[in-house]
């Protein structure tokens, strides 16, 4: 596990339009090397790597939290409309108003929270059946996409840029973006880790949780809010990248029981690594532009997701 992560990090630092060799990396870390390499490393490669880890960890944790507290293996920021909602709000702000970019994450949080809540409210009918949530989420996402499309039609020239953002990607992101994201994803992540004890109780039946003296609905709300904030932060900087939040928790569940205290941290680490790998693969093809991250995660996550869903259905009878 540790070996894989180190290799991944190193590879990430190595690859790109200008490749470094491990020796270069060593020299750079010692403070030597050419100026151009230095800039590339410190200003682009390193923050990008860190960003990938952070975004992946946030999305995976958000997904893990949502799946855990709703006890619904199909819950995830992207399938419940949170991602689309966050993106939509950002698009609305950027096309209709000229707002300082620093406000985007907040807008994303508002949009994501609003749409996510709506999804669950709509899907609730004597409980939350997984398939209903997915369908409601798909509907809400579609509406957000429709709104975004409408706005894109009006925005004309900037549509191209927005489109690229909509496909997801972290190319060209540097320390500034990292700093921005950390504010919105760091605290929720930490908080989620600290509150793991309540998370584990929520994994059980509602009635059991209440009898243990925990205000089940309040904590559920709290964790959902954390998930939304984390997602919004990640989406603001990386665009709506899908599948990570949905698939990674399932993988983690294969490795470790959800009840274990180490589950959330492991999930976050896995998420970060997976997104890093995805980003690596996005940089791999020798195209003029990188493959959008959303495409890579879709291609990786899609088949996996299908497998998961079929297993799920069979188990449910």
């Amino acid at each position, binding site marked *: 596990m540790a070996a894989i992560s180190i290799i991944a990090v190193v590879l990430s630092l190595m690859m790109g339009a200008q490749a470094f060799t491990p020796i270069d990396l060593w020299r750079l870390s010692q403070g030597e090397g050419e100026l151009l390499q230095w800039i590339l490393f410190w200003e682009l490669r390193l923050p990008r790597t860190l960003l990938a880890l952070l975004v992946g960890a946030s999305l995976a944790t958000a997904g893990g939290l949502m799946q855990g507290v709703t006890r619904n293996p199909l819950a995830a920021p*992207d*399938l419940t409309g949170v991602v689309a909602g966050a993106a939509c709000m950002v698009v609305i702000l950027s096309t209709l108003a000229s707002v300082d970019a620093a406000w985007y994450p907040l807008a994303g949080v508002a949009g994501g929270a609003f749409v996510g809540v*709506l999804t669950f409210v*709509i*899907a609730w*009918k004597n409980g939350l059946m997984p*398939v*209903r949530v*997915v*369908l*409601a989420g*798909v*509907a*809400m996402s*579609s*509406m957000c996409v*429709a*709104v975004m*499309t*409408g706005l*894109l*039609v*009006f925005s*004309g020239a900037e*549509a*191209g840029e927005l*489109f*690229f953002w*909509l*496909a*997801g990607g972290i190319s060209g992101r540097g320390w500034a973006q990292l700093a921005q994201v950390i504010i919105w994803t760091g605290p929720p992540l930490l908080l989620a880790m600290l509150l793991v004890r309540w998370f584990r109780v929520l994994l059980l039946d509602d009635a059991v949780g209440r009898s243990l003296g925990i205000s089940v609905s309040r904590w559920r709300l709290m964790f959902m809010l954390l998930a939304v904030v984390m997602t919004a932060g990640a989406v603001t900087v990386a665009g709506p990248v*899908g*599948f990570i939040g949905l698939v990674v928790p399932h993988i983690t569940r294969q490795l470790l029981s959800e009840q274990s205290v180490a589950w959330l941290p492991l999930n976050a680490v896995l998420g970060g690594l997976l997104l890093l790998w995805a980003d690596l693969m996005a940089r791999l093809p020798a*195209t003029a*532009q990188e*493959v*959008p991250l*959303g*495409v890579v*995660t*879709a*291609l990786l*996550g*899609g088949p996996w*997701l*299908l497998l998961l*869903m*079929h297993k799920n*259905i069979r188990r449910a009878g």
Partner: protein
Amino acid sequence: MNKVGVTPAVCWMLLPLAIVLGLLLSLSFGASSLSIEQVFGALIGNGNEHGERVVWELRLPRAVLATVVGLHFALSGCMLQALSRNPLADPGVLGISAGASLLAVMLVVGASMLPIGTSFNLQGDQLLAWLPWGALAGGILAALGVYLLSGSARLTPLKLIVTGVVCAAVLNAIMTGVLALWGQAHTETLVAWLAGSLHGRDWHHLWVILPWTLVGLIGVVITLRPLGLLRLNDEQVLSLGLDLGRWRLLVLLVATLLAASAVAVAGPIGFVGLVVPHIARGLVPGNLPHQLGISALLGALLVLVADLAGRTLVVPFELPVGVLCALIGVPAFLYLLKQQP
């Protein structure tokens, strides 16, 4: 439960009237308004040149196309909902529209990358000849993929929906990626098309889709009775002697052809196939043939009205018809989802 359905006869009489009214309104309103006399004049060939041009070359084909496209999507959705025994299915949810769009986008992008022609637009004749076939192929491939991945003959309605949702998500992501990478030069037209748009559609598009309307309607008639039966348990359907696998595939094929051919001409308009059948089921519960017919008429009406609204609400801009259908359709859909047990 004392839900009284409206008698089918009422719907069958009112809806066509409403469509005709909608058509007339579509012919009158738009960037330039024509009076009723002018419209009628143009229709019989007795009007002034401007009126005739607007009616015959711009509005009539577009309006008729809107009704046909709406009919396609609504019928497709109605069939898919009966097939999957789930009122929340439609060509978009099941990935058919996504597949059709993806292939269409790839064609557009691919054509611009080949040395054939450096400038073209989505309404250009040369590309247009291939686009519908591309979209059709894309839709069929997507449907086939979803069918196979759901277990082919062993598919259950639930698996079909779940697989469809995932495939739709994957295909849409890929399409966004393709657009982002290579569609830069044509983003505006592509974006409008992707929302579902009837802008600039003329008689050519209509001739492209009408054969498929015929094929689709024939398909509906053939699969009508088995489709009614498919709404029961799998075991009962088998015990009544129906070849489950074969008929499911056939129904899926017909629904796909209807949806994909509509996407080919107008882009992936969502929610028509989702919401309209639901309303039809509310009006004539339990009776599938009537539901199909009323869905078709309602769908035609909806798209016609949405297109009219899109053209006239924010003059001189034009809202793509898909955006309007979404704005009308989503709240309706969510309301219906709330009602569904």
